[in-house]
C-alpha cells in the first residue's frame, strides 16, 4: 500500500482532488440555489426560504432529499437511450469544465508533494480552448433532452436552445480573442500573469480596462450560453411550461439544475480570470496590510452572525447560528495568527471573492431583467454582439501592432 501511494502519488492526488472539488462544487451549487432564492426574494420584498433551518439554511438539504425520493416517470414514446444520456451529458460536461480552472498560484506542500489548487496542471497550453471545446459540447445536453422527450414543449425548448447557443458561441469566442492577444497565450495562468505586469497598478492593470468591450460581449454571451435570465428562452416558463426539461423529474431534473449552476460558476471563474486579474489583488503589491483583509471581513461577519443568532426565533437557530458565527470568526482570527496560511490564501481569497461577485450579478440580473423576445435575442446576438466583438479584436490587434512597431517599451 505504501509503495503504491509513493509510486502513484500524482494519480492519488488527482483522484483526491477530483473528489474534493466535486464535493465542494455540489455543496456550493446547493447553497447557490438558497442564495439565489434569498436574494431574489429580498429584491421582491419577500422573505424567501426560512422554514427549514435558521434563515432557511437547510432548505438545499430538503430539496436534495426531495429530488432523490420523487417518482421518476419516463414519458411514453421517449427515445430511452438519448433521454437518459442527455442529463448525464449536461452534468458531466459542466463539471469537467471546472477541472481546467486554476484556483490559486501557489502549491501546498503536503506529504512531500507540491499540490496545486485545481485539477488540471497549470501548464495546460490550450486551457481556454479546451474550456471552449467542453462548453461547445454542452448544447447537446439541452438539445437532446428536448428532442428525446417526445413532447412538444421540450422540443421547442431544445430548438431554441440550439439556435441560441450557435448564435452566441461566435460572439463568446471572438470576445476573448482580445485578451488572448494581450497575453499571447491560451494558458489561463499566463493570462493572469500578463495582468500583473505592473504590480503597483493593482486593479488598473487588469484586462477589463483595455478590454471593456470584450468583457461586455463575453459576459452577455456567456449568460446566453448558460441559458440564464434574460436569455432563458429555452425554459421560458410562461410559454414553454419548463422548456427542455419539462418531461424530466426527480434526480434527472436535478442533474440539469446542477449543470446550470455549475456553468454559472465556470463562467464567473472565467470572467474573473480573463478580465479581472484572477487571483491578483486589486491593490498595489506594496500594500501588504491588505493581506489582513480576509480576516477583517471574516471576523466582523462571524460576530454579526453570532449576534443575529442570539435573537433568532427558534431554539435550533439560537444554537446553529452562533456556532456558525464562531467558526467564521475563528477562521478569521486563525488567519491573523498563521501568517504563512494567510499569505497562501490571498490568491484563492481574491479569486473566490470575484467569483462571488459575478454569481451575485447573475442573480441580480435574474431579479431585475425581463426576458428577451426571440427576434430580439437573435438580433442582439448577430447584429450587436458579433460586430462589437470583431471590432474589439481589430482595434486590439492594431494597438498591439502599433506598440510593437513604434515601441512603447
Amino acid at each position, binding site marked *: 500500500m505504501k509503495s503504491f501511494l509513493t509510486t502513484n502519488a500524482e494519480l492519488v492526488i488527482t483522484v483526491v482532488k477530483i473528489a474534493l472539488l466535486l464535493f465542494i462544487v455540489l455543496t456550493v451549487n446547493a447553497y447557490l440555489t438558497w442564495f439565489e432564492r434569498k436574494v431574489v426574494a429580498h429584491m421582491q420584498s419577500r422573505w424567501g426560504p426560512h422554514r427549514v433551518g435558521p434563515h432557511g439554511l437547510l432548505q438545499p438539504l430538503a430539496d436534495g432529499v426531495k429530488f432523490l425520493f420523487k417518482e421518476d416517470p419516463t414519458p411514453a414514446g421517449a427515445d430511452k437511450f438519448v433521454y437518459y444520456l442527455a442529463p448525464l451529458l449536461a452534468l458531466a460536461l459542466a463539471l469537467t469544465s471546472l477541472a481546467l480552472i486554476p484556483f490559486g498560484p501557489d502549491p501546498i506542500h503536503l506529504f512531500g508533494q507540491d499540490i496545486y489548487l485545481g485539477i488540471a496542471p497549470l501548464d495546460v497550453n*490550450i486551457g481556454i480552448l479546451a474550456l471552449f471545446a467542453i462548453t461547445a459540447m454542452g448544447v*447537446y445536453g439541452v438539445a437532446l433532452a428536448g428532442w428525446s422527450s417526445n413532447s412538444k414543449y421540450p422540443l421547442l425548448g431544445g*430548438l431554441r436552445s440550439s439556435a441560441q447557443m450557435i448564435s452566441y458561441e461566435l460572439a463568446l469566442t471572438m470576445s476573448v480573442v482580445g485578451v488572448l492577444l494581450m497575453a499571447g497565450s491560451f494558458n489561463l495562468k499566463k493570462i493572469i500573469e500578463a495582468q500583473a505586469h505592473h504590480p503597483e497598478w493593482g486593479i488598473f492593470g487588469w484586462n477589463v480596462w483595455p478590454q471593456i468591450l470584450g468583457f461586455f460581449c463575453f459576459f452577455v454571451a456567456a449568460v446566453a450560453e448558460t441559458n440564464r435570465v434574460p436569455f432563458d428562452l429555452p425554459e421560458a416558463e410562461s410559454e414553454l411550461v419548463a422548456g427542455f426539461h419539462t418531461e424530466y423529474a426527480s434526480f434527472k431534473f436535478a442533474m440539469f439544475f446542477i449543470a446550470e449552476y455549475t456553468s454559472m460558476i465556470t463562467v464567473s471563474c472565467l470572467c474573473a480570470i480573463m478580465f479581472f486579474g484572477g487571483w491578483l489583488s486589486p491593490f498595489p503589491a506594496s500594500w501588504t496590510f491588505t493581506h489582513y483583509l480576509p480576516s477583517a471581513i471574516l471576523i466582523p461577519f462571524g460576530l454579526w452572525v453570532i449576534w443575529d443568532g442570539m435573537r433568532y426565533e427558534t431554539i435550533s437557530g439560537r444554537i446553529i447560528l452562533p456556532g456558525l458565527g464562531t467558526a467564521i470568526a475563528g477562521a478569521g482570527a486563525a488567519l491573523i495568527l498563521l501568517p504563512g496560511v494567510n499569505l497562501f490564501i490571498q490568491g484563492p481569497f481574491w479569486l473566490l471573492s470575484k467569483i462571488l461577485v459575478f454569481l451575485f450579478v447573475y442573480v441580480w440580473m435574474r431579479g431585475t431583467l425581463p426576458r428577451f423576445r426571440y427576434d430580439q435575442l437573435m438580433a442582439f446576438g448577430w447584429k450587436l454582439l458579433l460586430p462589437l466583438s470583431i471590432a474589439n479584436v481589430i482595434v486590439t490587434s492594431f494597438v498591439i501592432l502599433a506598440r510593437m512597431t513604434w515601441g512603447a517599451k
Partner: protein
Amino acid sequence: MGREMTAPLVVFFVLAGLAVIGAVSLILQKHPIHSALSLIVVMIALAGLYLLLGAEFVAAVQIIVYGGAIMVLFVFVIMLLNAGVEEHTSISKMAGAPGLLLVVALAGLVAATIARSTDSIQGTIETGEMSSTLGISNMIFKEFVYPFELTSFLILVAVLGATVLAQREKS
C-alpha cells in the same frame, strides 16, 4: 507484433476503436439523430487521436468546430424537420455490389500504403512544429497565406449564395 503495448498505444487503440465503432454505427443506425450522435463520437475520438499526436490546438479546434458548431447544426436541422426513422429501399441493395468492391479496393489501398511505409509514418509522430499554435499560425499566415485566403473567399461566396437563395422575393 513485435511492439510492446505502451500507454499511448493502448489509448490509440481505444480511440481508434471508438472512431471505427462510431463510423459503423453512423451507417447502421435507423434514426437520423442516432446517426448524428455516432458522428459526434467519431469527431471526439479523432480529436483524442490528434491530442495523442501532440497537436493540442488541432484537437481543441476539432471539437469546437466539428463536434460543437457543425454537429449542433446537423442535430438542429434534424430536430427542426422532425425527421423520423428511415425506410430501407431497394436502391441501397443495388448499391451493395459495387460498394463492396470499392470497400475492398480502398481497404487494400490503405493496407498497402501502411505496409510500405511503416517507418516513415511512425517517424512523423514527432511533430514539434505543428503542436504549437505559433507553428500553425506561421504556416497559415506566412507559408500558405494565399491558399488560406482563397479558401476563406470560397466560403464567403457560399455564404453569399445561401443568403441570396434564402431571401424572400420582393413583391
